[in-house]
């Protein structure tokens, strides 16, 4: 009871400094956990996000751009794939499924993608298939109809029966409105993939949109492919990328995204370095805070010694006090982590449609707080030693 009482009273006596220091620890711990969790989850989620396809065929250009455009609906298309090329790949014996997509229009910033209803029969993840919300139906291939992804529908406030006019281009420009009216026939249930951010319309609807080039009315932007075997990917790669020079075959999708993460690994390292530095500064602030309070507490420590407290009791009390600040910071650090992670996850979801799970477990969620507590205790060693050496007689009333 003695040690907890001494620690509690000391922390209360220096409440402001305790709170500020614990705040620093919380920020450091929360930041460390957030950087780590976003990094590992984003990498895992993005590389697994294939929406059910093994490869993408598109115009000659960067594989990464092709995957980002066709799977993540982010980049602009590098060019078109002629109808003949689409037909050829669709009929290729190594290809199981070929789904064409066409892009180039938006609805108030949300991308319109033209495709065929067969896309929604593909399993977008193991054991997961697309489903429409109650009361909706899939668009008809030759009608001016649309099915909205859940996130886009929620953000745009769309419901079944609504009509809209698309805007030309991938970025929203109010002056670039098309004259075609589309009607919403259904809303997709959330998939937590980039599909949620898209408004899907029939391929013909996008190809023949008023104002589009009639010469390209049969072209597609890319073809999403399911292969019959992994060996097929290597053969197609040879055919399109090495022997051909008009089209790009991006395979495997996950590996191409992993390459992107490899290229931006330095950014993770910078973030991690910042978090480590914050952790070090926080531990330093524990040292400074307790060390500075030592002058004010010398008398109390001397009184405790005069009452019979052993030096090691005093040393332990100061060390445990530092660790307690660490514990307090680590607990609040979870709140910081949840707040930061939720914010980052929302931005990532809004930008990519990929959902990160704030409740997911990783070892860093206990390693980081424990490391912070350890660092704080380490920061308490110097002031604890100073307390240990407090001269009792000198510190108490002047000799007479």
């Amino acid at each position: 009871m003695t040690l907890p009482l001494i620690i509690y009273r000391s922390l209360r006596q220096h409440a402001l400094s305790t709170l500020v220091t614990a705040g620093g620890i919380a920020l450091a711990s929360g930041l460390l956990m957030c950087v780590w969790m976003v990094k590992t989850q984003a990498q895992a989620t993005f590389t697994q996000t294939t929406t059910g396809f093994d490869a993408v065929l598109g115009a000659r250009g960067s594989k990464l751009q092709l995957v980002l455009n066709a799977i993540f609906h982010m980049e602009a298309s590098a060019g078109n794939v002629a109808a003949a090329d689409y037909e050829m790949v669709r009929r290729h014996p190594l290809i199981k499924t070929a789904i064409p997509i066409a892009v180039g229009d938006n609805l108030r910033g949300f991308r319109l993608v033209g495709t065929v209803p067969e896309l929604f029969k593909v399993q977008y993840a193991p054991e997961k298939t697309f489903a429409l919300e109650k009361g909706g139906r899939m668009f008809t291939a030759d009608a001016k109809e649309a099915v909205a992804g859940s996130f886009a529908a929620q953000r745009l406030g769309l419901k079944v029966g609504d009509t809209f006019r698309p805007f030309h281009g991938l970025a929203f420009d109010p002056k670039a409105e098309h004259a075609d009216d589309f009607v919403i026939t259904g809303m997709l249930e959330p998939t937590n993939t980039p599909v949620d951010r898209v408004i899907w319309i029939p391929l013909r609807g996008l190809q023949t949109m008023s104002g589009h080039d009639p010469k390209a009315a049969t072209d597609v932007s890319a073809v999403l492919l399911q292969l019959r075997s992994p060996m097929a990917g290597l053969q197609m790669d040879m055919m399109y990328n090495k022997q051909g020079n008009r089209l790009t075959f991006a395979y495997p999708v996950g590996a191409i995204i992993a390459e992107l993460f490899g290229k931006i690994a330095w950014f993770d390292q910078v973030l991690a370095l910042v978090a480590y530095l914050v952790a070090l500064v926080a531990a330093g602030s524990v040292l400074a805070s307790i060390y500075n309070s030592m002058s004010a507490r010398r008398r109390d420590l001397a009184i405790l010694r005069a009452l019979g407290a052993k030096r090691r009791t005093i040393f332990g009390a100061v060390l445990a006090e530092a660790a307690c600040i660490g514990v307090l910071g680590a607990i609040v650090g979870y709140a910081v982590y949840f707040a930061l992670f939720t914010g980052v996850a929302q931005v990532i979801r809004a930008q990519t449609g990929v959902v990160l799970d704030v409740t997911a477990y990783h070892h860093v969620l206990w390693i980081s707080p424990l490391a912070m507590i350890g660092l704080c205790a380490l920061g308490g060693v110097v002031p604890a030693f100073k307390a240990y050496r407090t001269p009792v007689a000198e510190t108490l009333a002047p000799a007479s």
Partner: protein
Amino acid sequence: MLAVSELKKSFVSPEGQQVEIVNVGAFALAAGEQFALRGESGSGKTTFLHLIAGILAPDSGSVVVDGAEMSALSEPRRDRLRAEKIGYIFQTFNLLQGFTVLENVTLGMSFGPRGADKAHARDMLERVGLGHRLHHFPQQLSTGQQQRVAVARALANRPKLVLADEPTGNLDHKSGREALALIREVCREHQAALLLVSHDEDVLAQFETRRDFSDINRAVQEASQ
């Protein structure tokens, strides 16, 4: 209960000279005895009490408390002995300002053999008339009340030796008399030996056995020659 022999302590003055403060040839106190030492400020009487309590290490000499030779004990065992057998009442009370009245007393007890016995601490505080101030902080009390907390804390462990350093020095005349009566009464109840140092003649006059500190401290005698 207490036996002091050839106890010496010197300090280095700001001028760098070795100055002897305490040089006591022999001093003893029996169990239950109440003894007053008269001494002016700077006469070394607080240093003498610190040496007896083991707060300060002597240059040479011996202090035996309840049969235990202080200088033969390791520091942790000296701390333990102080917590178990010595109650110290300071002139400036030395209460822990961040702790409540009850906590000041229980904390003092916690280093002793009985541990932090809250019920006994409450009894002690009621005994000194502070039963209604248990959860107050020292700064919320009058000077006289603070001194009573210090008395309760010093006696809560039922020490065999009580050292009181100018216990009435910061109190008005009435409060001083009350505090002194309380200390003496509680010491009698607990059969504790009391060694009190003061320069207040009114306080000293209440003790049957009293002596000038200068009579036993050869350092003062030499300095005055």
